[in-house]
Every structure is written in structure tokens, then in C-alpha cells.
């Protein structure tokens, strides 16, 4: 398929002239960075967060003084292994498509009697959102090594995929950015950071499959909701509400595009 955008960029590059830094020097730099990333992969501090999450999963909490051990993440009550590799999915009991975090909120509400508002309104990595991050770290660790397998057959999933795709290309705000501005072409970088092309299976698998992740730059574990929220911050849009439909729709679009790719969660990122 012809990508007109690419031609324009190439044409511009030709018009504006000037030679880029020798490809070999640039490649060497990226090799060095890959070596750096490999050195960090062993001993991912997400393990510390996941250990907390596992503890929290088994600890009775809330007005109902219950644990989350009976939580159904889509594979049956209490099944954690492999569950996040198949999310988001349509859940009959809520009549909604849910991602891991909104599903965990449902479990906290129904099993423990906790108000999801406390999660939605908390600041990132504080209070109930800190607890959510720990639970997420635990759950996604249990899908490490699995294949991304999102079932899009349900009409609600199909609809969310279409809405997510529209959201992906939606340009708005003072900088006219969309997700596609940075993630809609192959082989691009933002500063030194390589950008996955999220329109392709390979790119989406690299992106979706390695989040949630530990970020070394700030020593924080970020859930997918946190990741998407910061993408929108950088796009200079208004703020997406935690667990809102746009975040679920985008997740469905990304996960479905990534289908068949490998889950390496929690990832470790810059």
C-alpha cells in the first residue's frame, strides 16, 4: 500500500537537503542502548510491586472483608494465570467491555464492597491507585510469556475496536496531535526513543505486549491506564478520565491489532 505521508516526508527530506548523521554512528548508539536495556531486563523492579500485589490479592479488605481470590478476570473465578493476555473482553455480568483495571474495580466493588470512585479519583501511585498498580503488577506477571489473545467476535468488542481506531487517528488540541502522529509510521524515533508503529501487528505487539511496565526514569510502575493517560498528556489534549470508554476502546484496538504477539509484562522501560 502506498503511504502518501511517507512520500511527503521523503520529498521534504530531499528538499531540505543535508545529510543525516552517518547511519553507522546512529546504529552504534542504538546498539549501545539495546545493550543497556538487556542489562536491566534481569532484575525488573516490577517484581517488588507484583509481590505486594499478590499479597493484596489474598488480603480481605473493604466493608465485605473479602479478598479478591474469587475475582473473575474472564477465565473463571480466581483464575489469574493467563487472564490479562486475553483482556480487554466483553463481560456478561456487567454487560460491558472491560480492561484489566476496570475489571478489577468491578471485583473490588462486588466482592469487597469498595467504591470504584476511590480508585478513579485517587492520584497516580497514591492511595487506591497505588493498590491498583500493585494488583495489576501481580496479575500481568501471571501472563508473562503467553500470547496476546483477544476475542473480538462479540458485537460490543467489534464496536469498541472501531471506536478505538477512530480515537487512534483523532487529531485535536493545540498541537494537532493524534496517537498516529508518533505511532503511525515505521522506523521512527522521538529523540532516542524508537516508536512502535501501532497500526501493524508487530508494532502493536511490541507496545501492547510490554506494558504495564516499570519506568526506570522515575522508578515507578505504570499500569496501561497510566500509560494511555500520559500519552494524552503528551498529545496536549484534555485529560482522559480513568477507565473511561476511550481508554477501553483504544485498548481493544491495540490489543486486537497485537493478537498473536508475545506478552512480556511487566516490561521495563526508560
Amino acid at each position, binding site marked *: 500500500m502506498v503511504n*502518501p*505521508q511517507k512520500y*511527503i*516526508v521523503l520529498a*521534504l*527530506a530531499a528538499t*531540505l*537537503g*543535508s*545529510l*543525516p*548523521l552517518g547511519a553507522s554512528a*546512529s546504529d552504534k*548508539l542504538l546498539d549501545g542502548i539495546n545493550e543497556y536495556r538487556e542489562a536491566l531486563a534481569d532484575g525488573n523492579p516490577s517484581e517488588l510491586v507484583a509481590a505486594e500485589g499478590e499479597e493484596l490479592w489474598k488480603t480481605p479488605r473493604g466493608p465485605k472483608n473479602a479478598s479478591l481470590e474469587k475475582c473473575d478476570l474472564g477465565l473463571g473465578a480466581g483464575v489469574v494465570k493467563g487472564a490479562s493476555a486475553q483482556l480487554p473482553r466483553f463481560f456478561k455480568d456487567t454487560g460491558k467491555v472491560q480492561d484489566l483495571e476496570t475489571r478489577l474495580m468491578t471485583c473490588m466493588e462486588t466482592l469487597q464492597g469498595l467504591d470504584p470512585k476511590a480508585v478513579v479519583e485517587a492520584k497516580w501511585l497514591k492511595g487506591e491507585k497505588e493498590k491498583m498498580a500493585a494488583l495489576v503488577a501481580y496479575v500481568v506477571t501471571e501472563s508473562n510469556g503467553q500470547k496476546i489473545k483477544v476475542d473480538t467476535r462479540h458485537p460490543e468488542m467489534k*464496536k469498541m475496536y*472501531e*471506536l478505538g481506531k*477512530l*480515537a487512534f*487517528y*483523532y*487529531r*485535536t*488540541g*493545540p*498541537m*494537532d*496531535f*493524534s496517537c498516529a*502522529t*508518533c505511532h503511525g*509510521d515505521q*522506523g*521512527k*524515533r*522521538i*529523540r*532516542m*526513543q524508537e*516508536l512502535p508503529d501501532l*497500526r501493524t501487528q508487530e508494532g502493536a505487539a511490541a507496545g501492547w505486549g510490554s506494558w504495564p511496565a516499570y519506568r526506570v526514569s522515575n522508578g515507578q510502575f505504570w499500569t496501561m491506564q497510566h500509560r494511555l493517560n500520559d500519552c494524552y*498528556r*503528551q498529545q*496536549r*489534549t*484534555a*485529560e*482522559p*478520565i480513568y477507565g*473511561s*470508554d*476511550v*481508554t477501553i*476502546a483504544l485498548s481493544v484496538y491495540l490489543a486486537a491489532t497485537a493478537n498473536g504477539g508475545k506478552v512480556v509484562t511487566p516490561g521495563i522501560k526508560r
Partner: protein
Amino acid sequence: MKKISTLAVLLLALPAAWAGSEDTYAEFKAMMDRSFKTNGIAAKHRMYQLDFQKSCSQEKQPPKAEMARIEAEQLKTIRYPADGKYFGDWKQGEKIATSGRGLTWTDKTPHDNGGGCYNCHQMSHHEVSYGTIGPSLLEYGKVRGSTDEIIKYTWGKIYNAKAFNACSNMPRNGDAEILTEQQMKHLMAFLFDPASPVNKK
């Protein structure tokens, strides 16, 4: 003035630019409307598109005629320096090119922004951490020279890149009030000054 005209344009949004079914699109708009909230300077109205933003929100670019129409519209927004002076201080320009800050909901004021140039462009001989979303601008002034035509074109490109490529990835630095006229002059100097590391090894 500017704001009023953008609002007017918003109301004229083109249904033809959108390829899917109208029902799905109505549902999409409703979803976007309920999914975002104002946070600090990042007000909710940022989610409402300008007409060219809408035209450029598809997998493929709009047809040529539509592109040309947008470019002509956008060209009208460009304001050239009233004093006829295009160049500031390249050292300030380098700082502006390096800073990717501004206009997010964690920024306190909408009037203190970087240009974020290095996010997408190679620029100087010594900065190795540059993006590749846009073309390399290394030795920009040296290669292109500094004829009036080139200077005017470059100013226009920084001011509103959509005037030259309707769906360009580059923000409208002047038109969208991301950078001030003075900041853009500094960037011009960074690109053209023979002493700037863009041109000098």
C-alpha cells in the same frame, strides 16, 4: 478574532471527510465527549476538532483538492514579522529547540513553551538525541543559503506547517500560539546563523 474564526470553521465540519457510518461516528463523538475532562490549562474544549484536524484524522490523507483547500486556508494565517527582522539569538534558539515542555495539564501556564524540535528533527552537529519523525535539519542554513525566499518559507513553515502540507505532523507554532514571535526568531537564527551548531561543526 482568530478564536472566532476557528469556531466558525468548527461548525462547518465536513461530513464527507469521515468514512465510517454516521451512527458509529455519532457514537464516537459521544464517547469522546464523556471520556475527557478539563485538568488545569488542558481544557475540555481541546477535544473539539478544527475542520482540517478532522480531515486529517483518517488512515489515509484526504484527496488532493481537499489538501490544497486546507493549505490555502492555513497560508492565510501566517503573520510575518512586522519589523521585517527574522533573526534573534541562535543560543536562545537552541534552548527552545531542545525543550519539549509546555501546554500539558501539568504545565502551569500556556505561555512558556518549548519548540520540541529535537523530538522529531536532527538539528545540530553535537546533539545525538534527536527524533526522526521529521526530516533532518542539519546544516540547514549552510545547505539552503539565506535568500529572502528561503527565509520567508522557513518562517512560514515554523509558523504554520499546515500551509505547506495540510496534514503535516508538525504543530502550528505561530498560528496555535505555541511559540511567540520572538521565540520563532531565535529558532530562525539557530537554523540559519553560520555560527550556530546547526551549520558549524
